[in-house]
């Protein structure tokens, strides 16, 4: 049997807070750069938030020809297109901007119909100001045949939208919004038709304008709500300075994580947002452990100057901070290395979160306590009492 190795056991006590001014400058700089980056370089929003189409295609014969594909898909009239290798050289991720339902999409629908049901088909925009689309078939068709032809083109138009009698022209009633949503499908089908013979489509995703806008809004709310809820929790459990310090630390971590997304132009998708929220929760985890020790020491050493007390607390919890950071770090590193391309941006962000979380609990949250003017005699009576006789159980209630 082996002996435990004290991995993070330091004889020396570090004067962490001596660097608080330097840290303040660095943190401010990182955050300002991140914010400026968001507004200048911009976040590379995934289709979850922006709306649009993502198609994962694998070349049937080995290597994906990115340039060739870019030309083919770029000429489909579906707007902005971006391509990147995804995981391995044979696989490519094709992203198409969200479709707005303009006349170009209707022209696209005509090409889709012609390919699927015959050259004679025509698709034209209906009355201006509406989303109506006029379909003309070469022969008169009844409702069932209409439905069939449209289905072959991979489009959904249901009985309510299809003509009732036997006819060769049909005006499909759609609102402008409905047409915009419908046009995502047209674009998917266009891309499928264009590259389907040489590429196997492994996965398709499309997000219409409506959902994209909604997710964006609720995503921002989720981040704000999480930070506020955590700050309130800390406020309930500690003095207000702790809550403010924690909130600033969280903001710091969230903003700088977003900065990482800007810097590396990582795909900012729903999973990325999950990473941001998790980092908020994780970084505070670290902060709270140190705060807990700070409070305990405030009770014990009433006369100790705040800076010394904070340094003492950080040093006492240092091995735990590093140990936990290390375990989470190796777990996340496994995700980065083996989790596959889908989880890539999530894992990279989390990796950053582990590092910045440890940094911010010392140099942002604790340093914040100094700037917020916390004094040892400020402990609330309840918090002060709690340690007498070691009845921490009571404090948990």
């Amino acid at each position: 049997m082996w002996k435990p190795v004290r991995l993070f056991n330091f004889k020396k006590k570090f004067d962490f807070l001596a660097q608080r001014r330097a840290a303040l400058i660095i943190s401010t700089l990182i955050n300002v750069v991140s914010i400026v980056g968001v507004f200048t370089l911009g976040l590379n929003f995934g289709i979850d938030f922006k709306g649009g189409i993502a198609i994962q295609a694998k070349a049937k014969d080995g290597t994906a020809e990115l340039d060739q594909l870019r030309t083919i898909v770029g000429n489909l009239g579906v707007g902005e297109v971006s391509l990147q290798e995804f995981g391995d050289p044979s696989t490519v991720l094709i992203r198409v901007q969200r479709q707005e339902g303009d006349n170009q999409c209707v022209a696209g629908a005509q090409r889709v119909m012609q390919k699927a049901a015959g050259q004679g088909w025509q698709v034209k925009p209906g009355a201006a100001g509406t989303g109506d689309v006029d379909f003309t078939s070469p022969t008169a068709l009844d409702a069932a045949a209409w439905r069939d032809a449209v289905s072959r083109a991979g489009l959904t138009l249901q009985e309510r939208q299809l003509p009732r009698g036997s006819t060769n022209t049909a005006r499909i009633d759609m609102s402008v919004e409905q047409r915009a949503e419908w046009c995502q499908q047209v674009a998917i089908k266009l891309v499928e038709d264009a590259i389907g013979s040489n590429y196997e489509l492994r996965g398709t995703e499309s997000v219409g304008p409506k959902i994209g806008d909604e997710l964006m809004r609720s995503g921002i709310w989720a981040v704000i709500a999480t930070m506020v809820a955590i700050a309130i929790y800390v406020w309930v459990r500690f003095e207000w300075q702790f809550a403010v310090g924690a909130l600033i630390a969280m903001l710091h971590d969230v903003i700088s994580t977003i900065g990482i997304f800007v810097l590396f132009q990582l795909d900012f998708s729903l999973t990325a947002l999950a990473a941001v929220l998790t980092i908020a929760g994780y970084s505070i985890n670290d902060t709270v452990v140190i705060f807990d020790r700070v409070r305990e020491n405030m009770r014990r050493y009433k006369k100790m100057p705040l800076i010394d007390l904070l340094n003492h607390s950080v040093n006492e919890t240092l091995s735990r901070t590093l140990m936990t950071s290390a375990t989470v770090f190796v777990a996340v590193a496994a995700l980065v290395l083996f989790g596959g391309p889908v989880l890539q941006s999530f894992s990279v962000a989390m990796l950053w979160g582990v590092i910045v979380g440890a940094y911010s609990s010392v140099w942002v949250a604790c340093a914040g306590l100094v700037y917020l003017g916390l004094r040892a005699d400020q402990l609330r009576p309840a918090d002060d009492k709690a340690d007498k006789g070691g009845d921490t159980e009571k404090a948990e209630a």
Partner: protein
Amino acid sequence: MLNLPRWQTIVIAAITLLSALFALPNLLPGSVLQHLPQWYATSRINLGLDLRGGAHFLLEADLRSVLTERLTNLSDAVRAELRKQQVPFRDVTVEAGKNLVVTLRDEANRSKALEAIRTVDPALALSGSGDTIRVAYSEQELAKRKKEVIDQSIEILRRRVDETGTLEPTITRQGDERILLQVPGIKDTSDLKRKINQTAKLTFHLVNEDVAATGQNIPQTVPPTTFLVPTREGMQELRRTNPKAWEDIQAANPRLSPEQICRRYQPQCLPVLKRVVVGGEDLDDSKATFEQQQGGRPIISFTFNSAGGRAFCAATRANIGKRLAIQLDGEIISAPVVQSAICGGSGIITGSFTTQQTQEQSLLLRSGALPATLTIIQESTVGADLGADAIQAGTVAALVGTALVAIFMFVAYGPVFGGFANLAMLVNLLMVFAGMSILGASLTLPGIAGLVLTAGLAVDANVLIYERVREEKALGRSPFSALATGYEKAMSAIIDANLTTLIAGVLLFGFGSGPIRGFATTLTLGIITSMFSSTIFTRMLLAVWVRWRRPAELVI
């Protein structure tokens, strides 16, 4: 703290064993599962579509149009009633998606008009002043109607998508006006879209008895008012006698019209008038039942709405003795002779049906058209091999991640304490699996990431405890006392740290959709269960160990 009563030890051990029991079906290979009782073997975690492969559609129902349509019907009824009660009015207009506006010729008739409108539907909300009356449905009525439309759409989608009963689609309501449709294991979405588009188009036509009287199955010419439609029996006969022809008909692109089928393949056909007597959209309900007399043959009964009832009444009154053909999806399912005027708004279809056929057909009649247009607002398709890749990547990442964490703990805290922490991590994973099996939650790729993250986070409680024990040991406490105080003093930090992460997890769950929800599920579950496994469970292990080994010194 370390003196655990026996019952506590038993309870903790029982919880751990139960979790392992619930988690086990997920870990055993299929060959072993075969020999276990089915209820146990099948209580496994569902894989999300991103791992399993399949299609996911978020559909939005166009409820505004449904309301407008309904208001248009209402406006007819209101007009009729006002005329009947001799209230002069200038106009009845529909404000799309909102209400009706009735403009009276004379303000003096207002109360009379209000009364007339109330007789149409007493639940209507009436407002406005002077010569205008606004007629709207009440909030409750609208909410009820919305719910009906969505429920009916879900029912119809289920029938259309899962014709064969093997696809296991999940169709659920999302919010007020959306439906989430998930079908595992399919890759070709155009097939799924075809199914969504599919109609059960029902129409009633009069048989053109003049043409039918010629006795030929397929007359050379028919008048322009008439067309030929194959009968259901005719098509079944064709399928039996000429399967090749039947297959050609199914595969024809573009689809053949009923008339073309009659001319080309000559199944039994009927000449019917093109004019539609009543359409399926006017059908309110349809049931499979049995005839009262004549041996109780299986029959189909149906009920029309008021407009349909009136049209049906007029048509049957004028055509007694003639046949009325019921056309469903381009086939005549029956053509009973009209015995008398049918004016009660309901009727029956008799024929040589089996009970199963009447049930099928009444369902077909009932589930006719989707009540609202559904627009796909989000779609995702994952091929099975892509899912398999994701499982592969997720499994490797999870194994490597947990193994690295375990090695770390072993190195840092030695075989005993590191071992206990790692055992706790294992129990935690089992509990998450068990929890997911019980909750019926789906495991997604981000969910696997959540598991890996939880593995890293869950040992944090042990790290907190062990570091505290080290501190207490350094202060010169005895092993027993150092362990007890270590647990006690670390508790507050553990709870704070876990609760803050839990807040993030819960909010993420509330916000998230699809795969993200999977991440939030494993993370949240993992944090909750880790409070048990890392503290209560390891404390039990240590209590037992201390009593057994009575160590003179803690090797930590």
